[in-house]
């Protein structure tokens, strides 16, 4: 009976076998393929890529299959894999201004150069369960928006920038030499931290955590008066500067979602009133995440704008230390591990405290009556 208390190799092996069995489910239902997940659960794949910080659709799809659809578990698989990959170098900064856009909307101008492109969005669907979807059916191919083909699509912020109405990103934000950028995967997070570290942390942060924090800023906990300046989703080229060649070579393309929030800023003694921004950039099509990042990012800049830091979303140490779901899930779930050595010392202490308590009946009675 004593042996039964301690775990064992056999128990672990059996648990893994059972896990594989449950993952497969009923054998008379065809097994799902990673290809199917990649193509038909693409938004789940995008979230896993984005929070896993690794742009690989096939691997993300496989991770989702292996994790039985538990996305945080899948994110964890991707992170652990990516940690073993060698760091070859840093690419040039992505140019989202020259993005091949599949969706681009602005909430602050009715129309703008390049036009509004809805793209594939749930925004105006009625959330009615489509019972027909339960059966397989042919789906006609979609109509790609070709509003103004070939026309440039300048960033909304740059349109406002011409009048000096909006802040412009500075070199201190990490623009410029990519080798001088902070890298959260190579340096531990330390405070106070710059915008580069902040944006990197938020880009891989848990969507749910950021969503709730962003929401809290809208409800008065660190209000930022936000407007969606622009959301754009599409493909951007990744370029790498090769020292030996002396020029940049394209490595491939990524799909990213970018959100720029435009926020009111009334100015201070030294700064003229102008719009400030919150920024979010994530892998794949993750609009809710990109918006949440942008809202929280702006809230975290409170100090920079001389705003009182009083809400959770404005507190960099609080937000950035707790936004990583791989860290959070690990530490919360580690409570499942045995703690009987510590509990034994607590047992001894509580027994001692109770003994002391019983030995002081008068004091004890007094305490009880106060409660």
């Amino acid at each position: 009976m004593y042996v039964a208390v301690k775990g064992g190799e056999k128990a672990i092996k059996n648990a893994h076998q059972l896990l594989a069995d449950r993952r497969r489910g009923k054998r008379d239902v065809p097994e799902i393929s990673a290809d199917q997940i990649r193509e038909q659960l693409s938004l789940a794949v995008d979230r896993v890529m984005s929070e896993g910080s690794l742009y690989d659709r096939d691997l993300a799809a496989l991770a989702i299959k292996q994790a039985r659809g538990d996305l945080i578990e899948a994110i964890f698989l991707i992170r652990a894999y990516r940690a073993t990959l060698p760091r070859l170098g840093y690419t040039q900064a992505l140019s989202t201004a020259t993005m091949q856009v599949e969706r681009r909307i602005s909430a602050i101008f009715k129309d703008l150069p390049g036009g509004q492109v809805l793209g594939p969005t749930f925004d105006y669907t009625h959330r009615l369960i489509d019972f027909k979807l339960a059966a397989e059916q042919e789906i006609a191919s979609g109509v790609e928006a070709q509003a103004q083909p070939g026309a440039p699509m300048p960033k909304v912020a740059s349109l406002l920038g011409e009048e000096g109405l909006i802040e412009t990103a500075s070199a201190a934000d990490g623009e410029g030499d990519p080798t001088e950028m902070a890298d959260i995967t190579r340096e531990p997070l330390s405070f106070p931290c710059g915008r580069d570290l902040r944006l990197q942390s938020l880009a891989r942060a848990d969507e749910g955590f950021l969503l709730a924090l962003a929401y809290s800023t809208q409800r008065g906990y660190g209000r930022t008066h936000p407007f969606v300046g622009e959301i754009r989703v599409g493909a951007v080229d990744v370029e790498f500067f090769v020292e030996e060649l002396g020029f940049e070579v394209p490595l491939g393309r990524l799909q990213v979602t970018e959100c720029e929030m435009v926020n009111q800023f009334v100015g201070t003694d030294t700064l003229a009133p102008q719009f400030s921004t919150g920024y979010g950039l994530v892998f794949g099509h993750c609009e809710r995440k990109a918006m949440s990042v942008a809202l929280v990012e702006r809230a975290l800049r409170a100090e920079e704008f001389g705003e009182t830091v009083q809400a959770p979303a404005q507190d960099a140490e609080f937000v950035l230390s707790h936004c990583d779901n791989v860290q959070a899930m690990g530490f919360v779930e580690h409570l499942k591990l045995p703690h009987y050595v510590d509990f034994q010392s607590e047992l001894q202490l509580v027994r001692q405290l109770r003994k002391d308590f019983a030995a002081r009946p008068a004091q004890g009675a007094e305490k009880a009556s106060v409660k």
Partner: protein
Amino acid sequence: MIESPHETGYNFAYLDEQTKRMIRRAIMKAIAIPGYQVPFAAREMPMPHGWGTGGVQLTAALLGPEDVLKVIDQGADDTTNAVSIRQFFQKTAGIATTTRTDEASIIQTRHRIPEMPLKAGQILVYQVPIPEPLRFLEPRETETRKMHALEEYGLMHVKLYEDIARHGYIATTYAYPVRVEGRYVMDPSPIPKFDNPKMQMSPALQLFGAGREKRIYAIAPHTRVASLDFDDHPFKINRFDRPCALCGGEGVYLDEVLMDDRGQRMFVCSDTSYCESRRAMGHGPVDASAEPAR
């Protein structure tokens, strides 16, 4: 670079050599400033944070092909997590493992220090959940780092004093803070305070790894490690009033095992290797093993 003897597709002991070098540099700094928490760029490991990712990274950076590894959790070699970590290194490094404390060159532990005194040349790797001893008094890292820099430990002494004022003794039973070489206050990880004296002047190297919190710290061999206390309330460890029910060992830490739903319980060695070696030498129960029902 040492090639992995196994077909895992990963480097020897999982981590790439650059990462190991980064960790070794942090270890060197930690040894040079005993008790000081050295930030390091912890990687995501294939087990969750809280399962010992800090300890695993230390072990991965330390292991060579000749090493013999022992892994314990709650003092036992056969707890599920200890089994899992041991298997991880068997698979990725192909090294020899043992359950015997005296045979191991590296011992990775969670929540205990082995009962058998460690020797020079051995390395004890602790898994650490919260490396900051001041964390529950001050949640901000920016503040606690300042407090360490200024050697400002008043808050901790006030906390211990308040315990004494309230209970007559210090009501901290595990993760009991220590002062290392008269300078840094350090969290010994959640070992019971029973184990604290084993850290003092140990001939073995003691390394502490916190993966999620990205910190490494160390106690070099033969370093002074004092549990915090007051002159009129010296540090005391809790002793068990009975021997181990299996090997009769005394002066060791015991696990309480519930036998049934009528209050029947037994107390047995938490250090399974120690208990087994004693039983192998012919020691056995001293008297009736189980406590009668209350």
